[in-house]
């Protein structure tokens, strides 16, 4: 069995705000093994980014409350002193941020920013660090890295900046690479390049990847395991093929059904999930998806646990419907047929 790198157990993150307590993450569990790609899928406000930031201790604040545990190689991270955490962050756990336009410092040269990432964690000469920065830029596919290493971020295109961000994240050969919507700001052609790159580098650097995205098409390609989040909770969790071919939660199959697909004939109207995501301050009672769920019934007033309800072990979901009902009810939605509008 592969080495277990990360264990997240009952993670809750709450922010105290003027309007009340925001339950951004409300009970998330997962594990991550070396070589694995975990896709976390959800809409804005589902808690996927907060989960990722919390792994790196980037949500620490006097107004934040944590519950549960995050363990990296057995070591608990949530209460680790900031100094110790800094040794791990960027070194063993590294992050690729969503927006390549704003997550680099515009007044420093790209190369210097990578050099800084290296020298922060390692005792190497500047010259060596610079050589490594150039090599990293070459590995992520920047043309003329010897010259480009001295460019400023604004001289790079969006795709190149995202590559430079990846180079920076890989600078210290991290065990876990967390990519938060790494391709959302990019064109499809560049997106394809970046996904391929992350997939290749994962093998070269022998790391594990957490890929956070709202795009099921992206995870279909690279993920091994998928976590579907809704309103701070995991609503479904399983191997990639189980999630795509045997989705158990109405939210998951709703998402799958609402993507305009090129591989199918065009439907007259698109399937859509009615309503909008709930407030995280006053979430609905019972199942969080109930107000938007076309299949909701009485029992949904009470929240279902995340349990294994299908034959496939390790495929968990949070829905009261029986497996047979689910398989019957989801058919039309998965085919992309629009529901009748009441």
């Amino acid at each position: 069995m592969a080495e277990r790198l990360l264990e997240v157990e009952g993670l809750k993150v709450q922010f105290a705000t003027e309007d009340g307590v925001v339950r951004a993450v409300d009970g998330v569990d997962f594990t991550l093994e070396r070589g694995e790609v975990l896709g976390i899928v959800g809409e804005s406000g589902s808690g996927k980014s907060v989960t990722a930031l919390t792994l790196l201790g980037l949500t620490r604040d006097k107004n934040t409350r944590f519950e549960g545990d995050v363990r990296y190689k057995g070591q608990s991270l949530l209460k680790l002193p900031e100094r110790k955490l800094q040794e791990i962050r960027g070194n063993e756990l590294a992050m690729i941020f969503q927006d390549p336009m704003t997550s680099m410092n515009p007044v420093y040269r790209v190369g210097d920013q990578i050099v800084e990432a290296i020298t922060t964690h390692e005792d190497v000469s500047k010259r060596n660090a610079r050589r490594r920065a150039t090599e990293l830029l070459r590995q992520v596919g920047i043309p003329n890295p010897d010259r480009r290493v001295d460019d400023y971020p604004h001289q790079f295109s969006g795709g190149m900046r995202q590559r430079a961000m990846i180079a920076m994240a890989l600078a210290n050969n991290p065990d876990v690479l967390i990519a938060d919507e790494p391709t959302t700001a990019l064109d499809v052609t560049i997106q394809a390049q970046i996904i391929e790159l992350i997939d290749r580098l994962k093998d070269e650097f022998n790391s594990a990847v957490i890929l956070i995205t709202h795009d099921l098409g992206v995870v279909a390609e690279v993920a091994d395991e998928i976590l579907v989040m809704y309103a701070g909770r995991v609503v479904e969790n399983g191997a990639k093929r189980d999630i795509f071919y045997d989705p158990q939660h109405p939210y998951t199959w709703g998402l799958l059904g609402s993507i305009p697909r090129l591989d199918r004939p065009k439907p007259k109207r698109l399937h859509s999930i009615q309503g909008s995501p709930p407030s995280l301050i006053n979430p609905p009672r019972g199942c969080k998806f109930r107000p938007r769920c076309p299949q909701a019934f009485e029992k949904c007033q009470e929240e279902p646990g995340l349990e294994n309800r299908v034959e496939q072990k390790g495929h968990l979901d949070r829905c009261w419907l029986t497996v047979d009902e689910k398989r019957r009810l989801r058919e039309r939605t998965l085919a992309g047929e629009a529901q009748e509008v009441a």
Partner: protein
Amino acid sequence: MSSDPKANGNLLEIKHLKKYFPIRKGLLQREVARVHAVDDITLTVAKGETVGLVGESGCGKSTLGRCIIRLLEPTDGDIVFQGQSIAKLGAGAMRPLRREMQMVFQDPYASLNPRKRVGSIIGDPLTIHGLGDRNERKKQVEELLETVGLSPEHYNRFPHEFSGGQRQRIGVARALALRPKLIVADEPVSALDVSIQAQMINLLEALQDDFGLTYVFIAHDLGVVRHVSDRIAVMYLGKLVELSPAEELYQRPIMPYTEALLSAVPIPDPDLSEQRERIVLEGDVPSPIHPPSGCRFHPRCRYATDICKQVEPPLTDYGNGHLAACHHPLNVDKETLAQVTASEKYSPRSADEDVLPDAPSKKKSSPIPEKG
């Protein structure tokens, strides 16, 4: 929705449109170079039709959209709207026409004034054009809110009280306020979540039927574009490289760039995703300041030969309203190839109209696998 362009007449005709942005340098602000954002594009949009404009960032699709509704003044060429040339009209002469054409912007967070209430955001176009008195305007705004799926009680709220999807609905209501004929929608759904995207697309389609709207729909998401469009125009570095009825573009792309774009769209199905051959385009879009010679796509094209570097291919008519500019067209058989002619109307003046595509396609290319 779909309509025969000839029967209805064209609402919009874009003729050899060019938009260059000068780059100025030095004390005297001399023009040292130009960004060729839109470079000789001809396109017509029929009444009631939806034309999708696709391409990577920097291809000029947004600039073209902004020229159409005259937020930008074209450098050269003409725009004919309802039979009237508007490319050179001044601000005063444009004003009455602004009622007829509106825009929906990409970013629902940046395109609504945070200090104004929803009622005045949607009602301002009515005030500016002096339509109705206060009460009538209020009533109309409330109706508009209902039309786009919001509630009349939202009248006095501020934009920050709404989610992204709701804000985009406000943007649509504002565009609809003056009952325009043409709406240019610039990436109207790309900032929205998947579940909300589908709602928005359905709304836009319903509104088109109810109000008889004509859309120019700008997007980089080929899945969305296919769903809403009757015809699709593919742009690359300021040029129109392929124009086709929507479905046909997906079944039978002729220009290799279109083929690559299609193959880059992720398919939410692990098995299909593994099966298909993916064409990963190397590098980025070249600079529009010094665009490549000949066919602008040649540095990234896997079929490129010498002729592509030297001669700009004309937009060639492959029948059924399907045009493409390529020396090595895909998915075209020999017989068709023998009959094709360069389209006099659509081809840029810089293209060499005598040079017709020669090499017959080596194989049938279908970037999207079918299940089964």
